[in-house]
Protein backbone atom coordinates (compact mmCIF):
# COMPACT_ATOMS: atom_id res chain seq x y z
CA UNK A 1 0.00 0.00 0.00
CA UNK A 2 1.33 3.40 -0.88
CA UNK A 3 1.34 6.15 1.69
CA UNK A 4 -1.93 8.09 1.72
CA UNK A 5 -1.83 11.21 -0.39
CA UNK A 6 1.55 10.47 -1.95
CA UNK A 7 1.41 10.83 -5.71
CA UNK A 8 1.57 7.48 -7.46
CA UNK A 9 5.08 6.57 -8.41
CA UNK A 10 6.89 8.68 -5.85
CA UNK A 11 7.74 5.67 -3.72
CA UNK A 12 8.79 3.83 -6.82
CA UNK A 13 11.09 6.67 -7.79
CA UNK A 14 12.54 6.66 -4.32
CA UNK A 15 13.02 2.89 -4.42
CA UNK A 16 14.73 2.85 -7.82
CA UNK A 17 16.70 6.04 -7.35
CA UNK A 18 20.17 5.70 -8.78
CA UNK A 19 23.03 5.86 -6.35
CA UNK A 20 26.70 5.08 -6.58
CA UNK A 21 26.73 1.55 -7.86
CA UNK A 22 29.52 -0.71 -6.74
CA UNK A 23 30.86 -3.47 -8.97
CA UNK A 24 29.17 -6.03 -6.72
CA UNK A 25 25.90 -4.10 -6.88
CA UNK A 26 25.99 -4.02 -10.67
CA UNK A 27 26.70 -7.74 -10.78
CA UNK A 28 23.82 -8.48 -8.37
CA UNK A 29 21.49 -6.28 -10.44
CA UNK A 30 22.29 -8.12 -13.67
CA UNK A 31 22.01 -11.53 -12.02
CA UNK A 32 18.64 -10.77 -10.42
CA UNK A 33 17.14 -9.25 -13.57
CA UNK A 34 18.47 -12.21 -15.56
CA UNK A 35 17.01 -14.73 -13.10
CA UNK A 36 13.62 -13.00 -13.12
CA UNK A 37 13.51 -12.88 -16.90
CA UNK A 38 14.57 -16.53 -17.23
CA UNK A 39 12.00 -17.70 -14.68
CA UNK A 40 9.16 -15.78 -16.32
CA UNK A 41 10.23 -16.75 -19.83
CA UNK A 42 10.24 -20.46 -19.02
CA UNK A 43 7.05 -20.46 -16.99
CA UNK A 44 4.91 -17.81 -18.67
CA UNK A 45 6.15 -16.77 -22.09
CA UNK A 46 7.16 -20.18 -23.48
CA UNK A 47 3.74 -21.74 -22.70
CA UNK A 48 1.98 -18.71 -24.17
CA UNK A 49 4.07 -18.87 -27.33
CA UNK A 50 3.60 -22.62 -27.68
CA UNK A 51 -0.18 -22.15 -27.68
CA UNK A 52 -0.05 -19.98 -30.80
CA UNK A 53 2.75 -21.96 -32.44
CA UNK A 54 0.81 -25.22 -32.14
CA UNK A 55 -2.51 -23.64 -33.12
CA UNK A 56 -1.00 -22.32 -36.36
CA UNK A 57 1.28 -25.26 -37.17
CA UNK A 58 -1.00 -26.41 -40.02
CA UNK A 59 -1.35 -22.88 -41.31
CA UNK A 60 -4.29 -20.49 -41.21
CA UNK A 61 -6.57 -23.03 -42.88
CA UNK A 62 -5.90 -25.62 -40.21
CA UNK A 63 -6.48 -22.98 -37.56
CA UNK A 64 -9.81 -21.89 -39.01
CA UNK A 65 -10.92 -25.48 -39.61
CA UNK A 66 -10.90 -26.00 -35.83
CA UNK A 67 -13.71 -23.47 -35.48
CA UNK A 68 -15.86 -25.02 -38.21
CA UNK A 69 -16.57 -27.93 -35.89
CA UNK A 70 -20.16 -27.55 -34.57
CA UNK A 71 -19.16 -28.88 -31.12
CA UNK A 72 -16.47 -26.23 -30.81
CA UNK A 73 -18.92 -23.58 -31.94
CA UNK A 74 -21.41 -24.76 -29.31
CA UNK A 75 -18.67 -24.62 -26.66
CA UNK A 76 -17.83 -21.02 -27.55
CA UNK A 77 -21.51 -20.10 -27.42
CA UNK A 78 -21.96 -21.77 -24.02
CA UNK A 79 -18.92 -20.00 -22.57
CA UNK A 80 -20.20 -16.61 -23.76
CA UNK A 81 -23.70 -17.36 -22.45
CA UNK A 82 -22.34 -18.42 -19.06
CA UNK A 83 -20.28 -15.24 -18.71
CA UNK A 84 -23.28 -13.19 -19.83
CA UNK A 85 -25.42 -14.63 -17.03
CA UNK A 86 -22.83 -14.96 -14.25
CA UNK A 87 -20.89 -11.70 -14.51
CA UNK A 88 -23.91 -9.37 -14.18
CA UNK A 89 -25.26 -11.38 -11.24
CA UNK A 90 -21.96 -11.20 -9.38
CA UNK A 91 -21.62 -7.52 -10.27
CA UNK A 92 -24.98 -6.72 -8.68
CA UNK A 93 -23.99 -8.82 -5.68
CA UNK A 94 -20.62 -7.08 -5.42
CA UNK A 95 -22.22 -3.63 -5.49
CA UNK A 96 -24.79 -4.65 -2.92
CA UNK A 97 -22.23 -6.24 -0.59
CA UNK A 98 -19.87 -3.27 -0.88
CA UNK A 99 -22.68 -0.82 -0.15
CA UNK A 100 -23.79 -2.74 2.95
CA UNK A 101 -20.25 -3.23 4.28
CA UNK A 102 -18.78 0.20 3.47
CA UNK A 103 -21.72 2.41 4.37
CA UNK A 104 -22.98 0.88 7.59
CA UNK A 105 -21.76 -0.53 10.88
CA UNK A 106 -23.25 -3.83 11.96
CA UNK A 107 -22.38 -6.88 13.98
CA UNK A 108 -20.65 -9.71 12.16
CA UNK A 109 -19.26 -7.50 9.42
CA UNK A 110 -15.81 -9.05 9.39
CA UNK A 111 -17.37 -12.51 9.37
CA UNK A 112 -19.42 -11.48 6.33
CA UNK A 113 -16.28 -10.30 4.51
CA UNK A 114 -14.49 -13.56 5.32
CA UNK A 115 -17.45 -15.60 4.07
CA UNK A 116 -17.61 -13.61 0.82
CA UNK A 117 -13.94 -14.44 0.20
CA UNK A 118 -14.47 -18.12 0.97
CA UNK A 119 -14.91 -19.41 -2.62
CA UNK A 120 -11.39 -18.18 -3.48
CA UNK A 121 -9.93 -20.52 -0.88
CA UNK A 122 -11.94 -23.55 -2.02
CA UNK A 123 -10.41 -25.87 -4.61
CA UNK A 124 -12.24 -25.62 -7.96
CA UNK A 125 -12.99 -29.34 -7.89
CA UNK A 126 -14.63 -29.04 -4.48
CA UNK A 127 -16.61 -26.02 -5.68
CA UNK A 128 -18.07 -28.14 -8.45
CA UNK A 129 -18.62 -31.11 -6.15
CA UNK A 130 -20.77 -29.01 -3.81
CA UNK A 131 -23.41 -28.71 -6.50
CA UNK A 132 -23.23 -32.39 -7.40
CA UNK A 133 -23.90 -33.18 -3.73
CA UNK A 134 -26.89 -30.81 -3.76
CA UNK A 135 -28.41 -31.38 -7.16
CA UNK A 136 -26.86 -34.65 -8.40
CA UNK A 137 -28.83 -37.88 -8.84
CA UNK A 138 -28.02 -38.96 -5.27
CA UNK A 139 -27.79 -35.44 -3.89
CA UNK A 140 -30.05 -33.62 -1.41
CA UNK A 141 -32.50 -32.33 -4.01
CA UNK A 142 -31.70 -35.02 -6.60
CA UNK A 143 -34.86 -37.09 -6.23
CA UNK A 144 -37.14 -34.05 -6.15
CA UNK A 145 -35.48 -32.52 -9.22
CA UNK A 146 -35.71 -35.81 -11.13
CA UNK A 147 -39.39 -36.17 -10.22
CA UNK A 148 -40.06 -32.69 -11.58
CA UNK A 149 -37.98 -33.19 -14.70
CA UNK A 150 -35.45 -30.48 -13.86
CA UNK A 151 -31.81 -31.21 -14.62
CA UNK A 152 -29.13 -29.03 -13.08
CA UNK A 153 -26.09 -31.27 -12.84
CA UNK A 154 -24.76 -32.46 -16.21
CA UNK A 155 -26.73 -29.60 -17.76
CA UNK A 156 -26.29 -25.90 -18.40
CA UNK A 157 -27.80 -24.61 -15.10
CA UNK A 158 -25.16 -26.57 -13.15
CA UNK A 159 -22.38 -25.01 -15.19
CA UNK A 160 -23.78 -21.56 -14.47
CA UNK A 161 -24.19 -22.15 -10.73
CA UNK A 162 -20.68 -23.60 -10.39
CA UNK A 163 -19.26 -20.63 -12.29
CA UNK A 164 -21.31 -18.29 -10.11
CA UNK A 165 -19.66 -19.87 -7.04
CA UNK A 166 -16.05 -19.64 -8.22
CA UNK A 167 -16.38 -16.06 -9.47
CA UNK A 168 -18.50 -14.99 -6.50
CA UNK A 169 -15.97 -12.77 -4.62
CA UNK A 170 -14.25 -11.05 -7.55
CA UNK A 171 -16.31 -7.84 -7.81
CA UNK A 172 -17.09 -7.60 -4.09
CA UNK A 173 -13.47 -7.91 -2.90
CA UNK A 174 -12.46 -5.15 -5.31
CA UNK A 175 -15.26 -2.78 -4.28
CA UNK A 176 -15.38 -3.29 -0.50
CA UNK A 177 -11.93 -1.84 0.33
CA UNK A 178 -12.32 0.84 -2.34
CA UNK A 179 -15.66 2.09 -1.01
CA UNK A 180 -14.45 1.87 2.58
CA UNK A 181 -11.50 4.05 1.69
CA UNK A 182 -13.47 6.60 -0.33
CA UNK A 183 -15.83 7.26 2.58
CA UNK A 184 -19.45 8.39 2.69
CA UNK A 185 -19.21 12.19 2.74
CA UNK A 186 -20.42 12.79 -0.81
CA UNK A 187 -23.29 10.32 -0.48
CA UNK A 188 -24.38 11.86 2.81
CA UNK A 189 -24.26 15.34 1.25
CA UNK A 190 -26.34 14.16 -1.72
CA UNK A 191 -28.99 12.56 0.50
CA UNK A 192 -29.10 15.57 2.80
CA UNK A 193 -29.60 17.85 -0.20
CA UNK A 194 -32.63 15.79 -1.19
CA UNK A 195 -31.32 13.31 -3.77
CA UNK A 196 -33.07 9.96 -3.84
CA UNK A 197 -31.30 6.69 -3.04
CA UNK A 198 -30.95 5.55 -6.65
CA UNK A 199 -29.92 8.98 -7.85
CA UNK A 200 -27.23 9.09 -5.17
CA UNK A 201 -26.00 5.67 -6.24
CA UNK A 202 -25.94 6.37 -9.96
CA UNK A 203 -24.75 9.99 -9.87
CA UNK A 204 -22.43 10.00 -6.86
CA UNK A 205 -21.21 6.52 -5.95
CA UNK A 206 -20.95 4.89 -9.36
CA UNK A 207 -18.69 7.58 -10.87
CA UNK A 208 -16.47 7.38 -7.78
CA UNK A 209 -15.95 3.64 -7.99
CA UNK A 210 -16.10 3.11 -11.75
CA UNK A 211 -12.48 2.03 -12.23
CA UNK A 212 -12.56 -0.39 -9.33
CA UNK A 213 -15.84 -1.78 -10.62
CA UNK A 214 -14.43 -2.23 -14.11
CA UNK A 215 -11.36 -3.92 -12.64
CA UNK A 216 -13.48 -6.39 -10.70
CA UNK A 217 -15.74 -7.10 -13.68
CA UNK A 218 -12.72 -7.79 -15.92
CA UNK A 219 -11.27 -10.30 -13.45
CA UNK A 220 -14.68 -11.88 -12.83
CA UNK A 221 -15.22 -12.30 -16.57
CA UNK A 222 -11.78 -13.84 -17.14
CA UNK A 223 -12.39 -16.43 -14.45
CA UNK A 224 -15.97 -17.09 -15.62
CA UNK A 225 -14.86 -17.80 -19.18
CA UNK A 226 -11.78 -19.78 -18.17
CA UNK A 227 -13.03 -21.88 -15.26
CA UNK A 228 -12.15 -25.52 -15.71
CA UNK A 229 -12.15 -27.62 -12.51
CA UNK A 230 -15.54 -26.66 -11.07
CA UNK A 231 -17.29 -26.74 -14.42
CA UNK A 232 -15.63 -30.03 -15.33
CA UNK A 233 -17.21 -31.74 -12.32
CA UNK A 234 -20.78 -30.57 -13.00
CA UNK A 235 -20.80 -30.58 -16.78
CA UNK A 236 -20.92 -34.28 -17.64
CA UNK A 237 -18.84 -33.50 -20.75
CA UNK A 238 -21.61 -33.89 -23.30
CA UNK A 239 -20.08 -32.62 -26.53
CA UNK A 240 -22.02 -29.90 -28.25
CA UNK A 241 -24.25 -29.50 -25.21
CA UNK A 242 -22.46 -29.05 -21.89
CA UNK A 243 -18.86 -28.45 -22.94
CA UNK A 244 -17.54 -24.94 -22.35
CA UNK A 245 -14.39 -23.77 -24.14
CA UNK A 246 -11.95 -25.06 -21.49
CA UNK A 247 -13.75 -28.42 -21.50
CA UNK A 248 -13.72 -28.53 -25.30
CA UNK A 249 -9.95 -28.00 -25.13
CA UNK A 250 -9.63 -31.04 -22.87
CA UNK A 251 -11.87 -33.16 -25.14
CA UNK A 252 -9.91 -32.23 -28.27
CA UNK A 253 -6.60 -32.74 -26.46
CA UNK A 254 -7.66 -36.21 -25.29
CA UNK A 255 -8.55 -37.00 -28.93
CA UNK A 256 -4.95 -36.07 -29.90
CA UNK A 257 -6.42 -33.29 -32.09
CA UNK A 258 -3.72 -30.91 -30.86
CA UNK A 259 -4.16 -28.29 -33.58
CA UNK A 260 -7.82 -27.84 -32.71
CA UNK A 261 -7.20 -28.01 -28.95
CA UNK A 262 -4.56 -25.30 -29.15
CA UNK A 263 -6.68 -23.27 -31.59
CA UNK A 264 -9.47 -23.06 -29.01
CA UNK A 265 -6.82 -22.45 -26.34
CA UNK A 266 -5.47 -19.56 -28.41
CA UNK A 267 -8.85 -17.80 -28.15
CA UNK A 268 -8.72 -18.08 -24.36
CA UNK A 269 -5.08 -16.96 -24.39
CA UNK A 270 -6.18 -13.88 -26.36
CA UNK A 271 -8.86 -13.30 -23.75
CA UNK A 272 -6.15 -13.47 -21.06
CA UNK A 273 -3.97 -10.99 -22.95
CA UNK A 274 -6.92 -8.64 -23.41
CA UNK A 275 -7.70 -8.97 -19.70
CA UNK A 276 -4.12 -8.05 -18.78
CA UNK A 277 -4.11 -5.13 -21.21
CA UNK A 278 -7.39 -3.78 -19.83
CA UNK A 279 -6.11 -4.21 -16.28
CA UNK A 280 -3.00 -2.22 -17.12
CA UNK A 281 -5.15 0.49 -18.71
CA UNK A 282 -7.31 0.74 -15.59
CA UNK A 283 -4.17 0.93 -13.45
CA UNK A 284 -2.93 3.80 -15.65
CA UNK A 285 -5.91 5.87 -14.48
CA UNK A 286 -4.32 5.84 -11.04
CA UNK A 287 -6.52 3.08 -9.67
CA UNK A 288 -4.55 0.89 -7.33
CA UNK A 289 -5.49 -2.44 -5.86
CA UNK A 290 -5.67 -2.57 -2.12
Amino acid at each position, binding site marked *: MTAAGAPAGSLEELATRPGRETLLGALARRCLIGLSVAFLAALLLAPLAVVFATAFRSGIQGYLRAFADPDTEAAIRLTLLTALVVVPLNTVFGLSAA*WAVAKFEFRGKSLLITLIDLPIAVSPVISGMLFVLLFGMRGWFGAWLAANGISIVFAIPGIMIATLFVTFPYVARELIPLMQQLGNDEEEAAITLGAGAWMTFFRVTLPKIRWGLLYGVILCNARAMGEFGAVSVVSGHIRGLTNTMPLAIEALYDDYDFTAAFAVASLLALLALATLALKSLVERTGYRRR
Partner: protein
Amino acid sequence: MRGGQPTVLPGFGLTLGFTTFFLSAVVLLPLAALVLLAASTPLHELLDAVASPRALASYQLSFGGALIAACTNLVFGFIIAWTLVRYEFPGRRLMDAVIDMPFALPTAVSGIALTAVFATNGWLGGYLDMVGIHVAYTRLGVILAMTLIGMPFAVRTLQPALLEVQRDLEDAAETLGAGRWYVFRRVIVPAVLPALLTGFTLAFARALGEYGSVIFISGNLPLKTEITPLLIVIHLEEFDYRGAAALGFVMLAASFVILLAINLLQAWGRNGSVRRDS
Protein backbone atom coordinates in the same frame (compact mmCIF):
# COMPACT_ATOMS: atom_id res chain seq x y z
CA MET B 1 -18.26 -3.26 17.71
CA ARG B 2 -20.76 -0.43 17.36
CA GLY B 3 -24.20 -1.41 16.17
CA GLY B 4 -26.63 0.87 14.38
CA GLN B 5 -24.44 3.93 13.98
CA PRO B 6 -26.75 6.78 12.92
CA THR B 7 -26.47 7.56 9.22
CA VAL B 8 -28.66 9.26 6.67
CA LEU B 9 -27.73 6.78 3.96
CA PRO B 10 -30.48 4.52 2.64
CA GLY B 11 -30.44 0.92 1.54
CA PHE B 12 -29.12 -0.88 4.61
CA GLY B 13 -31.90 -3.44 4.75
CA LEU B 14 -32.02 -3.99 1.00
CA THR B 15 -28.31 -4.41 0.40
CA LEU B 16 -27.53 -6.42 3.54
CA GLY B 17 -30.60 -8.57 2.94
CA PHE B 18 -29.72 -9.29 -0.67
CA THR B 19 -26.04 -9.87 0.20
CA THR B 20 -26.88 -12.32 2.96
CA PHE B 21 -29.47 -14.13 0.85
CA PHE B 22 -27.23 -14.49 -2.20
CA LEU B 23 -24.25 -15.51 -0.05
CA SER B 24 -26.34 -18.15 1.72
CA ALA B 25 -27.81 -19.56 -1.48
CA VAL B 26 -24.63 -19.65 -3.55
CA VAL B 27 -21.92 -20.31 -0.97
CA LEU B 28 -23.12 -21.31 2.48
CA LEU B 29 -25.86 -23.82 1.65
CA PRO B 30 -23.63 -25.84 -0.72
CA LEU B 31 -20.77 -25.83 1.80
CA ALA B 32 -23.17 -26.97 4.51
CA ALA B 33 -24.25 -29.85 2.27
CA LEU B 34 -20.66 -31.05 2.00
CA VAL B 35 -19.97 -30.77 5.73
CA LEU B 36 -23.24 -32.52 6.64
CA LEU B 37 -22.66 -35.36 4.19
CA ALA B 38 -19.14 -35.92 5.51
CA ALA B 39 -20.45 -35.74 9.09
CA SER B 40 -23.27 -38.22 8.45
CA THR B 41 -20.95 -40.78 6.88
CA PRO B 42 -20.21 -43.73 9.21
CA LEU B 43 -16.79 -43.34 10.77
CA HIS B 44 -15.26 -46.51 9.33
CA GLU B 45 -16.41 -45.55 5.85
CA LEU B 46 -15.01 -42.05 6.35
CA LEU B 47 -11.66 -43.43 7.48
CA ASP B 48 -11.56 -45.86 4.56
CA ALA B 49 -11.96 -42.99 2.14
CA VAL B 50 -9.67 -40.54 3.94
CA ALA B 51 -6.89 -42.96 4.82
CA SER B 52 -6.79 -45.32 1.84
CA PRO B 53 -3.27 -45.81 0.43
CA ARG B 54 -4.31 -43.98 -2.72
CA ALA B 55 -5.63 -41.02 -0.70
CA LEU B 56 -2.50 -40.90 1.46
CA ALA B 57 -0.27 -40.91 -1.61
CA SER B 58 -2.35 -38.09 -3.09
CA TYR B 59 -2.00 -35.96 0.08
CA GLN B 60 1.72 -36.51 -0.02
CA LEU B 61 1.87 -35.16 -3.56
CA SER B 62 -0.71 -32.38 -3.10
CA PHE B 63 0.58 -31.04 0.22
CA GLY B 64 4.24 -31.81 -0.42
CA GLY B 65 4.15 -30.46 -3.97
CA ALA B 66 2.30 -27.32 -2.88
CA LEU B 67 4.89 -26.82 -0.14
CA ILE B 68 7.83 -27.12 -2.55
CA ALA B 69 6.06 -24.89 -5.08
CA ALA B 70 5.35 -22.26 -2.41
CA CYS B 71 9.00 -22.36 -1.26
CA THR B 72 10.15 -21.92 -4.86
CA ASN B 73 7.77 -19.00 -5.18
CA LEU B 74 9.08 -17.52 -1.95
CA VAL B 75 12.58 -17.36 -3.46
CA PHE B 76 11.69 -16.40 -7.03
CA GLY B 77 8.79 -14.22 -5.90
CA PHE B 78 11.23 -12.23 -3.81
CA ILE B 79 13.75 -11.99 -6.64
CA ILE B 80 11.09 -10.89 -9.14
CA ALA B 81 9.46 -8.42 -6.74
CA TRP B 82 12.89 -7.01 -5.84
CA THR B 83 13.81 -6.67 -9.52
CA LEU B 84 10.55 -4.88 -10.29
CA VAL B 85 10.73 -2.55 -7.30
CA ARG B 86 14.43 -1.72 -7.11
CA TYR B 87 15.73 -1.76 -10.67
CA GLU B 88 14.93 0.33 -13.69
CA PHE B 89 15.44 -1.56 -16.95
CA PRO B 90 13.85 -1.76 -20.37
CA GLY B 91 10.74 -3.94 -20.32
CA ARG B 92 10.07 -3.46 -16.63
CA ARG B 93 6.47 -2.34 -17.16
CA LEU B 94 5.84 -5.28 -19.48
CA MET B 95 7.30 -7.68 -16.92
CA ASP B 96 5.09 -6.13 -14.28
CA ALA B 97 1.98 -6.68 -16.42
CA VAL B 98 2.95 -10.23 -17.38
CA ILE B 99 3.18 -11.35 -13.70
CA ASP B 100 -0.63 -11.58 -13.56
CA MET B 101 -0.78 -13.94 -16.53
CA PRO B 102 -1.55 -17.04 -14.40
CA PHE B 103 -4.55 -15.17 -12.94
CA ALA B 104 -5.90 -14.39 -16.37
CA LEU B 105 -4.92 -17.48 -18.34
CA PRO B 106 -7.48 -20.30 -17.98
CA THR B 107 -5.93 -23.23 -16.15
CA ALA B 108 -6.72 -25.72 -18.92
CA VAL B 109 -4.73 -23.56 -21.34
CA SER B 110 -1.71 -23.28 -19.06
CA GLY B 111 -1.99 -27.03 -18.43
CA ILE B 112 -1.75 -28.13 -22.05
CA ALA B 113 0.77 -25.39 -22.84
CA LEU B 114 3.11 -26.36 -19.99
CA THR B 115 2.86 -29.98 -21.09
CA ALA B 116 3.73 -29.01 -24.66
CA VAL B 117 6.76 -26.99 -23.53
CA PHE B 118 8.11 -29.55 -21.07
CA ALA B 119 7.28 -32.82 -22.86
CA THR B 120 10.38 -34.64 -24.14
CA ASN B 121 9.66 -33.36 -27.65
CA GLY B 122 8.92 -29.84 -26.37
CA TRP B 123 10.97 -26.65 -26.56
CA LEU B 124 12.49 -26.93 -23.08
CA GLY B 125 11.66 -30.54 -22.27
CA GLY B 126 14.07 -31.72 -24.99
CA TYR B 127 17.04 -29.95 -23.40
CA LEU B 128 16.09 -31.06 -19.90
CA ASP B 129 15.72 -34.62 -21.16
CA MET B 130 19.32 -34.52 -22.41
CA VAL B 131 20.57 -33.82 -18.89
CA GLY B 132 18.30 -36.51 -17.50
CA ILE B 133 15.53 -34.32 -16.05
CA HIS B 134 12.02 -35.46 -16.91
CA VAL B 135 9.32 -32.93 -16.20
CA ALA B 136 6.17 -33.96 -18.04
CA TYR B 137 4.23 -36.86 -16.49
CA THR B 138 6.34 -36.84 -13.30
CA ARG B 139 6.00 -35.29 -9.86
CA LEU B 140 8.36 -32.56 -10.99
CA GLY B 141 5.78 -31.55 -13.60
CA VAL B 142 3.10 -31.32 -10.91
CA ILE B 143 5.35 -29.05 -8.85
CA LEU B 144 6.12 -26.92 -11.90
CA ALA B 145 2.42 -26.36 -12.63
CA MET B 146 1.81 -25.57 -8.95
CA THR B 147 4.68 -23.06 -9.03
CA LEU B 148 3.29 -21.31 -12.09
CA ILE B 149 -0.15 -20.95 -10.59
CA GLY B 150 1.08 -19.60 -7.24
CA MET B 151 3.75 -17.23 -8.56
CA PRO B 152 1.64 -14.04 -8.89
CA PHE B 153 0.42 -14.37 -5.29
CA ALA B 154 3.99 -14.27 -3.97
CA VAL B 155 5.08 -11.39 -6.21
CA ARG B 156 1.96 -9.28 -5.71
CA THR B 157 2.04 -9.47 -1.91
CA LEU B 158 5.77 -8.73 -1.75
CA GLN B 159 5.82 -5.81 -4.19
CA PRO B 160 3.98 -3.23 -2.05
CA ALA B 161 5.85 -4.36 1.08
CA LEU B 162 9.23 -3.90 -0.63
CA LEU B 163 8.14 -0.46 -1.87
CA GLU B 164 7.55 0.56 1.72
CA VAL B 165 10.94 -0.51 3.02
CA GLN B 166 12.63 2.72 3.98
CA ARG B 167 15.71 3.27 1.88
CA ASP B 168 16.85 5.67 4.60
CA LEU B 169 17.09 2.80 7.07
CA GLU B 170 19.24 0.80 4.68
CA ASP B 171 21.44 3.83 4.02
CA ALA B 172 21.73 4.47 7.75
CA ALA B 173 22.69 0.85 8.39
CA GLU B 174 25.29 0.98 5.64
CA THR B 175 26.67 4.28 6.90
CA LEU B 176 27.06 2.66 10.30
CA GLY B 177 29.16 -0.02 8.69
CA ALA B 178 26.70 -2.84 7.99
CA GLY B 179 27.41 -5.00 4.95
CA ARG B 180 24.81 -5.64 2.23
CA TRP B 181 24.05 -9.12 3.54
CA TYR B 182 23.63 -7.80 7.09
CA VAL B 183 21.27 -5.08 5.83
CA PHE B 184 19.29 -7.66 3.90
CA ARG B 185 19.00 -9.93 6.92
CA ARG B 186 18.39 -7.36 9.62
CA VAL B 187 16.57 -4.51 7.82
CA ILE B 188 14.85 -5.77 4.69
CA VAL B 189 13.69 -9.26 5.69
CA PRO B 190 12.11 -8.21 9.01
CA ALA B 191 10.26 -5.39 7.26
CA VAL B 192 8.72 -7.63 4.60
CA LEU B 193 8.33 -10.77 6.73
CA PRO B 194 4.53 -10.55 7.10
CA ALA B 195 4.15 -10.07 3.34
CA LEU B 196 6.63 -12.86 2.67
CA LEU B 197 4.64 -15.29 4.81
CA THR B 198 1.28 -14.12 3.42
CA GLY B 199 2.53 -14.61 -0.13
CA PHE B 200 3.87 -18.03 0.78
CA THR B 201 0.55 -19.07 2.32
CA LEU B 202 -1.53 -17.75 -0.58
CA ALA B 203 0.69 -19.52 -3.11
CA PHE B 204 0.48 -22.72 -1.05
CA ALA B 205 -3.32 -22.54 -0.83
CA ARG B 206 -3.71 -21.97 -4.54
CA ALA B 207 -1.31 -24.78 -5.44
CA LEU B 208 -3.03 -27.20 -3.06
CA GLY B 209 -6.41 -26.88 -4.72
CA GLU B 210 -5.20 -26.49 -8.29
CA TYR B 211 -6.65 -28.91 -10.81
CA GLY B 212 -6.71 -27.70 -14.41
CA SER B 213 -3.08 -26.84 -14.95
CA VAL B 214 -1.83 -29.91 -13.05
CA ILE B 215 -3.80 -32.80 -14.55
CA PHE B 216 -2.43 -32.41 -18.07
CA ILE B 217 1.24 -32.43 -17.09
CA SER B 218 0.94 -34.94 -14.24
CA GLY B 219 0.05 -38.06 -16.23
CA ASN B 220 -2.30 -39.05 -13.38
CA LEU B 221 -0.73 -42.35 -12.33
CA PRO B 222 -2.44 -43.70 -9.17
CA LEU B 223 -0.12 -43.59 -6.12
CA LYS B 224 2.51 -41.69 -8.14
CA THR B 225 1.30 -38.53 -9.82
CA GLU B 226 -2.30 -38.31 -8.67
CA ILE B 227 -3.29 -35.14 -6.80
CA THR B 228 -6.11 -35.12 -4.24
CA PRO B 229 -8.52 -32.99 -6.33
CA LEU B 230 -8.19 -35.55 -9.13
CA LEU B 231 -8.96 -38.37 -6.70
CA ILE B 232 -12.13 -36.48 -5.73
CA VAL B 233 -13.12 -36.28 -9.39
CA ILE B 234 -12.53 -40.02 -9.77
CA HIS B 235 -14.77 -40.74 -6.76
CA LEU B 236 -17.48 -38.51 -8.23
CA GLU B 237 -17.27 -40.22 -11.60
CA GLU B 238 -17.85 -43.53 -9.80
CA PHE B 239 -20.85 -41.91 -8.04
CA ASP B 240 -19.06 -42.46 -4.71
CA TYR B 241 -20.36 -39.20 -3.25
CA ARG B 242 -19.38 -40.09 0.32
CA GLY B 243 -15.80 -40.88 -0.57
CA ALA B 244 -15.60 -37.65 -2.56
CA ALA B 245 -17.17 -35.64 0.25
CA ALA B 246 -14.77 -37.14 2.82
CA LEU B 247 -11.73 -36.14 0.76
CA GLY B 248 -13.31 -32.78 0.02
CA PHE B 249 -13.77 -32.27 3.73
CA VAL B 250 -10.06 -32.89 4.35
CA MET B 251 -9.13 -30.34 1.68
CA LEU B 252 -11.72 -27.88 2.96
CA ALA B 253 -10.41 -28.17 6.53
CA ALA B 254 -6.91 -27.47 5.20
CA SER B 255 -8.18 -24.44 3.27
CA PHE B 256 -9.92 -23.17 6.38
CA VAL B 257 -6.74 -23.39 8.46
CA ILE B 258 -4.85 -21.61 5.68
CA LEU B 259 -7.50 -18.87 5.46
CA LEU B 260 -7.24 -18.35 9.20
CA ALA B 261 -3.44 -18.15 8.95
CA ILE B 262 -3.69 -15.57 6.16
CA ASN B 263 -6.07 -13.40 8.18
CA LEU B 264 -3.75 -13.52 11.20
CA LEU B 265 -0.71 -12.75 9.04
CA GLN B 266 -2.46 -9.79 7.46
CA ALA B 267 -3.47 -8.45 10.86
CA TRP B 268 0.16 -8.84 11.91
CA GLY B 269 1.28 -6.98 8.80
CA ARG B 270 -1.09 -4.10 9.52
CA ASN B 271 -0.35 -3.73 13.22
CA GLY B 272 3.22 -4.85 13.53
CA SER B 273 2.10 -7.54 15.96
CA VAL B 274 -0.59 -10.19 15.98
CA ARG B 275 -3.83 -8.49 16.97
CA ARG B 276 -6.04 -10.16 19.51
CA ASP B 277 -9.76 -9.63 19.07
CA SER B 278 -11.26 -7.97 22.12
